[in-house]
């Protein structure tokens, strides 16, 4: 292996790692605030990517049905437990918003307005799925154990996977690149799309940092993560925090989908493996530490890239076994005498 191969692999690993980082970040965020291990995060990624690819063909994507359907279902489920005063806001979020997005998409889709518009539409169609899913599946379970929430996640993942197959079909798609520019750096070539990925990931990380550090809402989310009872005692509604966390997860998941769509072929179920790798990173970050999770995600990308060079047949084995020593090291450092939940 020479230096140029090494650099290409490194670059490849970092680009993939950046997408894992976004996924890992969402998993960390959602787990910290709600104790939910969000297995369906991968679905947001693949749905956004496929929606983006369909929009490029000038057709309104079938995922609009999903958006409206899930919105309506969330409306009904929330009505069940809600007081009347909040219904208006609820309807705005779960009924009016999807309707508007649908109308705009039907209007804009055939016009071929370029990748930026398509990207924004794809995110607008996919991101709201996350908060709807929260209302539908998780909110009624807010006080359940981590295990029960996990199984609920499995259920949501199964259902969304089935819907994905129905909506997008079994074959994959690729989206158009944001730019076809290619930069040369010595004998290395760097595609413009890779730079977009790294830049937008970095921008999202910065944006999240600013949100969490400098806004009261961000602080409220962190507070929910640190101490749920404490948060409730100052009047932070934990279900509201959960909704915000899911919204962020939906936005970032959809963004990662749009980012990765031009780089590779995405399938209706392809998000699961991306999600699992984001998971590996999130676990290494022990579902609590964002910076560690981001670094770990980049690490997972790089390890994956190198092991696909050295021993492609054992790539997944290597990537997934890798976390065991890390977990061990962490658990040895944080010895607790506390009882199991």
């Amino acid at each position: 292996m020479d230096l140029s191969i090494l650099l290409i692999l490194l670059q490849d690993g970092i680009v993939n790692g950046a997408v894992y980082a976004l996924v890992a970040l969402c998993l960390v965020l959602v787990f910290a605030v709600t104790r939910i291990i969000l297995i369906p995060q991968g679905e947001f990624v693949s749905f956004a990517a496929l929606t983006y690819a369909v929009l490029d063909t000038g057709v309104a994507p079938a995922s609009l049905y999903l958006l409206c359907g899930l919105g309506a279902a969330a409306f009904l489920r929330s009505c069940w437990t809600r007081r009347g005063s909040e219904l208006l806001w609820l309807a705005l979020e779960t009924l009016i918003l999807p309707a508007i997005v649908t109308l705009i998409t039907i209007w804009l889709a055939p016009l071929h307005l370029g990748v930026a518009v398509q990207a924004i539409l794809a995110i607008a169609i996919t991101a709201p799925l996350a908060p709807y899913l929260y209302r539908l599946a998780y909110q009624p379970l807010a006080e359940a154990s981590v295990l029960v929430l996990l199984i609920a996640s499995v259920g949501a993942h199964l259902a969304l996977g089935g819907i994905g197959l129905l909506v997008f079909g079994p074959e994959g798609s690729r989206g158009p690149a944001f730019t076809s520019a290619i930069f040369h750096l010595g004998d290395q070539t760097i595609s413009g799309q890779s730079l977009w990925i790294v830049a937008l990931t970095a921008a999202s990380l910065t944006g999240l940092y600013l949100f969490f550090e400098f806004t009261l809402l961000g602080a409220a989310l962190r507070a929910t993560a640190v101490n749920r009872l404490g948060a409730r005692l100052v009047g932070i509604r934990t279900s509201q925090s959960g909704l915000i966390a899911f919204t962020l997860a939906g936005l970032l998941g959809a963004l990662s989908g749009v980012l990765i769509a031009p780089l590779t072929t995405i399938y209706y179920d392809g998000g699961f493996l991306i999600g699992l790798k984001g998971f590996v990173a999130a676990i290494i970050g022990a579902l609590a530490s964002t910076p560690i999770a981001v670094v770990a995600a980049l690490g997972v990308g790089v390890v994956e890239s190198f092991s696909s060079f050295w021993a492609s047949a054992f790539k997944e084995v290597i990537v997934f076994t890798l976390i065991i020593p890390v977990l061990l090291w962490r658990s040895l450092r944080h010895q607790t005498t506390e009882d199991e939940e």
Partner: protein
Amino acid sequence: MIRFWPVLVIIAAFGLPWLPGLPLFWVTLGNEIGIAAIVATGLVILTGIGGMTSFAQASFMGFGAYATAILSTRYGVSPWLGLPAALLASGIAALAIGAITLRLRAHYLALGTLAWSVSLYYLFGTLDLVGRNDGISSIPPLQLAGVKFVDVRQSFTLIALALLASLWASRNLLDSRWGRAIRALRGGSVAAASFGVNIAAARMLAFVYAAVLAGLAGWLFAHLQRAVNPTPFGLNASIEYLLMTVIGGAAQLPGALLGAGLVVIVNDRLQDWLPLLLGHAGNFEVIVFGLLLVLVLQFAPSGLWPLIARRTAATRHTIGTIALPKRATPAPGPALEVSGLRKRFGGLVAVADLTFSLSAREIIGLIGPNGAGKSTSFNLLTGVTKPDAGTVRLAGRDVTGLSAPAMARLGVARSFQHVKLAASMSVIENVVLGAHLRGNASPIAGVFRQDRAEEAALFGEAMRQLERVGLAELADRPATSLALGQQRIVEIARALCLDPSLLLLDEPAAGLRHAEKQALAELLRKLAAEGMAILLVEHDMEFVMNLAARLVVMDFGTRIAEGPPAEVRRNPAVIEAYLGSAA
């Protein structure tokens, strides 16, 4: 009639599939349910009762299935000999994986097993030894007296018997000395460790046991399916077993069968009914199944079995009359000497240079305001927490820094300020946990019910201690249904089961009525007279001042006064710190 249930069950296992009019496919479904239920039974013990979530059960099933498949196809070994091989393979795999992974707690463990599951799946698909992705086919069927088990009806009998054996063994295990240790893992591991339970071993036991059951299922699977490949041992399969367990009711053995049955039947029926409802255009099964799963959890977060049977009837225990051997009565002299004991938590000094001593046959009260470091001192003296500095001597021997089980072995028993009784166990089962070290039956003896004599003796001891503290008539009640004060007394009975030479009681009188307090004081006096050394933390001044010969007063982790009650009560520093001065 009840006594004949095993016979009835066996008749059912043989006869049910041949029932006239029973569609053959139901038998096939029954087989599928049976195999899944065996895996789920292991998960009930591991996850529902032991509190450890595993995403790798299908992988362990794979170890068992591949072991027997390789032996019988490549080496022509009889499938029956494949059974011990399968159990051994999955057991050893669990032992190895557990050794690396079981140190992880809670969701880290869950995700660690998830990682194993994914990586083992790809390993199965890559290794030539196990036939890579195509797997191994042409596995010979089981044979008995020339009859091949190829018909699903014959298989049913075999699976039903295996499932019954699994349930029977699991029930026995839970009802044994080690089973109680596993049951105490969830919410009671600190208490269990304080009575000498090796928590790491109990966790490993549950892990390996569940894996061995999965290996049994894998063995059945291999010889009935007669072809194995990685897919049935992948992450999705593991997740399915886990969700069967949770849906059925993770904490009860019948939940495993219920969950497996529901999931298999619902999946099958959906396949038939949904096309009628929605047409053949798409595959809606998985969507509807996912939605159903979420809905069921929303309406029954602890699974469905608890909705069916509100509470399983308390297990009857044989109360033996043979007394357990007792510890030699300690020689008079200092039972406990503490000097310069120190513990910091972060920036907070919880205990600072605590020094005092306690003789056999003596009762000392440790008093001080809330947060003065009394409970931390207890944890330091019982090995739950390790001190930063200082020494603890027990009957002259340096025991500083020993673990909780080691301290228990030396005869140190305790109760807890926040009562730590296992909610899923009855009063007497909690109490008998205290006698853990006085038995020595192995888990295997427990599974095969070879521990009955010892169990009877242990329960006899527990009953005697319950009688001693006056709670014998509540022995079979669920522990947490008692009033808080009574729960404290249960903790004392549990401590007495250890046959301790040093007894540490944290606020034993809190929540007791006047008469109960007097009875307790009487009991403690009697225990001291028998040779026990007793250290009490107590807020009830009337109680402690009448009982203790000496009081040690703590504030901010240090001893601020020591002496006979009458003296302490006049000490200005004590009045200032504890008894409260006007603001």
